[in-house]
């Protein structure tokens, strides 16, 4: 509630709505002029004492028609809303909670109703029922019920799976108690928001019906009917449309803005982070007293920072040094959240939105010499990627675009990296698939990602990483998401490719077994810092840092277990 009161637009909308509703309720008190009292000598008359808004084309008092019209206009919208709620919410609750045949039948009916164009149905109903605005509003309510049904059903289906509902069921609470106590509290906020939105739509449709003159009969004052009368004299007195138009526009806008404000307040949505001032620069690397920089990849004093919602930055990787020589495999180990993936992304220049390298230096050695990649332009970055440095991701399935075939996802980077023709790129893609030991490359090339297995997908991603014949491979937990048997195959494949092509590899992993098996040297990361680094035999054989020791001991503890299996 306090959140809501802080939103000026929301408060303003609520005030406008209260004012309109108040005026509608108090209409007989606000003016003693009858809304249908016509005097032709007053037609198009200007405002006078006791008639603050003047007279319409038939000489009726505009103010009186406006406030009395509010009663009919809002009343119609409220009636439609009540019907929609009475039908949609209970049906949604039952369909979501109990499911089964009721859900199926209700779902089908909802699809049916949603295929009906509301306006045409209302016109047809008018033909059958005659000019009774209230009956039409009941039908509009029926047509609007699906929006509540779908909303409530969707939420309830989600909530039903939650643990506390199971607990309540086990505790023996009757179904209606569970629904009223647990489910209703969850759906309350979205329903309130939906109420405001549907009220706006109902108001618009009701006024629209009145405007084309098919709603009510006779001279029942409504905003839509007033707009219609005004529109007939649009050339002579456009101001007749001003007041009902303003009333309708303001009320509708207030309803939708109120819904938006309520959504922000009730659903606790995070606001966009404020942009960081551009002047924040990159802290230069400290190079003195550190070992010679490696010939392939060298990272010095790397810092990575993320933007926070309040506009400040938080550093998550601090002062990391790392070296990869050509043809060597370096392991980067640490628990999740230790900053190892952030370090790998920095080297590839693919940190997610809000993150940036805030300090240090990264050099990568390509055919045209050593390049400092911190602060490199997007265009120069592109030239390095794939041809010099390449990436194998962790989760194979989510890293392939589901909408394109494997073939198109392989051929595209090959053509970008080498500039060859489509046919040549296709041939090379087949060769690469064979190189990653895929037996039926023609079929895989034609497949979509969802048609192949996880292990196969990881082979495809490795093949794609080889597309530009890189010198440096950054592999981010390349086996974590795979089955144990497939893991060994993928590691063997990586080792073979590394030997054949003389690749330098930075292998990010949390698995010390993999490090011992594959790597030449290793760096251990914890809480954004490298705590220990060196040749694998040294670091794993005689760990100096407590954290490394605990990691090694954890692996040793596991070993007997594995053998006994």
């Amino acid at each position: 509630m306090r959140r809501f009161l802080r939103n000026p637009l929301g408060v303003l909308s609520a005030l406008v709505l209260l004012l309109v509703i108040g005026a509608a309720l108090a209409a007989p008190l606000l003016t003693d002029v009858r809304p249908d009292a016509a005097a032709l000598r007053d037609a198009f008359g200007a405002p006078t004492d006791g008639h603050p808004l003047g007279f319409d084309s038939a000489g009726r008092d505009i103010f009186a028609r406006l406030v009395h019209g509010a009663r009919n206009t809002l009343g119609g919208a409220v009636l439609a809303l009540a019907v929609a709620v009475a039908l949609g919410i209970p049906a949604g609750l039952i369909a979501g909670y109990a499911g089964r045949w009721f859900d199926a039948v209700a779902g089908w009916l909802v699809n049916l109703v949603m295929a009906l164009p509301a306006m045409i149905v209302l016109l047809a109903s008018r033909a059958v029922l005659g000019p009774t605005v209230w009956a039409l509003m009941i039908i509009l309510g029926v047509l609007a019920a699906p929006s509540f049904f779908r909303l409530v059903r969707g939420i309830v289906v989600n909530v039903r799976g939650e643990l506390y509902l199971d607990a309540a069921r086990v505790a023996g609470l009757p179904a209606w108690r569970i629904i009223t106590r647990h489910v209703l509290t969850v759906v309350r906020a979205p329903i309130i928001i939906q109420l405001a939105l549907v009220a706006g739509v109902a108001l618009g449709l009701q006024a629209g019906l009145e405007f084309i003159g098919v709603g009510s009969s006779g001279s029942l004052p409504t905003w839509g009917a007033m707009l219609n009368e005004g529109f007939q004299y649009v050339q002579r007195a456009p101001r007749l449309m001003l007041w009902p138009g303003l009333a309708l526009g303001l009320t509708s806008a207030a309803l939708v803005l109120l819904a938006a404000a309520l959504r922000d307040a009730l659903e606790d949505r995070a606001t966009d982070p404020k942009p960081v001032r551009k002047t924040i620069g990159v802290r230069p690397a400290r190079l003195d007293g550190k070992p010679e920089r490696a010939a392939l990849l060298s990272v010095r004093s790397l810092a990575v920072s993320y933007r926070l919602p309040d506009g400040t930055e938080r550093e998550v990787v601090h002062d990391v040094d790392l070296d990869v020589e050509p043809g060597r495999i370096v392991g980067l180990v640490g628990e999740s959240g230790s900053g190892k993936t952030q370090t790998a992304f920095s080297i590839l220049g693919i940190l997610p939105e809000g993150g940036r390298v805030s300090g240090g230096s990264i050099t990568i050695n390509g055919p045209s010499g050593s390049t400092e990649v911190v602060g490199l332009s997007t265009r120069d970055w592109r030239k390095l990627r794939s041809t010099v440095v390449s990436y194998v991701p962790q989760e194979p399935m989510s890293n392939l675009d589901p909408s394109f075939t494997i073939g198109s996802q392989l051929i595209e980077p090959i053509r970008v990296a080498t500039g060859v023709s489509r046919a040549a790129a296709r041939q090379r893609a087949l060769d690469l698939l064979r190189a990653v030991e895929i037996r039926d490359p023609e079929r895989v090339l034609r497949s979509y990602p969802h048609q192949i297995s996880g292990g196969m997908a990881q082979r495809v991603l490795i093949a794609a990483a080889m597309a530009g014949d890189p010198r440096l491979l950054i592999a981010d937990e390349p086996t974590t998401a795979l089955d144990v048997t497939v893991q060994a195959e993928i590691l063997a494949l990586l080792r073979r490719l590394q030997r054949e092509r003389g690749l330098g590899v930075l292998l990010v992993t949390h698995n010390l077994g993999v490090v011992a098996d594959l790597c030449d040297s290793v760096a251990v990361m914890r809480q954004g810092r490298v705590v220990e680094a060196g040749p694998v035999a040294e670091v794993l054989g005689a760990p100096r840092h407590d954290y490394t020791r605990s990691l090694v001991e954890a692996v040793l503890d596991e070993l007997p277990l594995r053998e006994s299996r």
Partner: protein
Amino acid sequence: MFGFVLRRTGAGLLLVLVISFVTYLLLSLPDNDVARTLLGPDAPAELVEATNAELGVDRPVLAQYADWLSHAVRGDLGTSWFTSESVGTAIAARLPVTLSLMLGVTLLTALVAFALGVWAGVRRGAADRLVQVLGVLGYALPGFLVTLVIVLVFAVRLGWFPAIGYIPITDSVGGWLSTVTLPIVSLSIGAVAGTSQQVRSAVIEVLRQDYVRTLRSRGLPTRSILFKHVLRNASAPALTVLGMQFVGLLGGAVLVEQIFGLPGLGSMAVAYTTRGDIPVIMGLLMVTVAGVVLINLAVDVAIGVLNPKARRA
């Protein structure tokens, strides 16, 4: 893919059939003494009875429906009670007006909504907030009110376009454009507001996907990632919303045709419903429902083409 289209077509046909049955029953509910209304209170009772028999309204409702359906599947939607004009011909004469309106609105909406949505989703920041405010405004104001303001400004005050009337495209392309521009623009505003929000959130969602990061790591140009991969994956949810807007657009067309005096299905619906001409109303309802079902089918097929995974559903 073929089986997928077949299944969707079957479901759509069933939907149209059920709706036709229910509407026919509901439209026949009140004991409507048609001939009495047609002939006036002074007509002799025998004549009224004979006319009722001639119109077929003295038979049981189910028999009437079976008769209507057997003709409808052959494209014959019956005859108007009041003008004895064929319902099919009357609709066919007015369909092109509404259809050209819908086509224009869909194209304009798709173009503007995608441009705005992608711009907001990629740029974020101030561009994003601007598009979101436009979206709320476009949604908040009733469409016909916006239309009235547009008429007032561009037709009445500035006089750039005629306020009323229709010139068929076969008569004059320029004249046609001058009569449909304002209606199309006014109808598009609400649709753009809804669709651009959906495009925006879909683009933001896709940009966060792992495969976009991997594509960047492959050295692909940003333009190719954006227009090939992001746009294709983001267009499925956007198309769904565009299809859902269509039902609302039909209602909007009724008002807009009335305001601009366009001789389309919408103004036809208004004219015939006030008279209670049931065969025409039934025909109009079925044509519009069939249109909605067709659009939904087209959207489903388009999504199936764009997203191979959806074909299995």
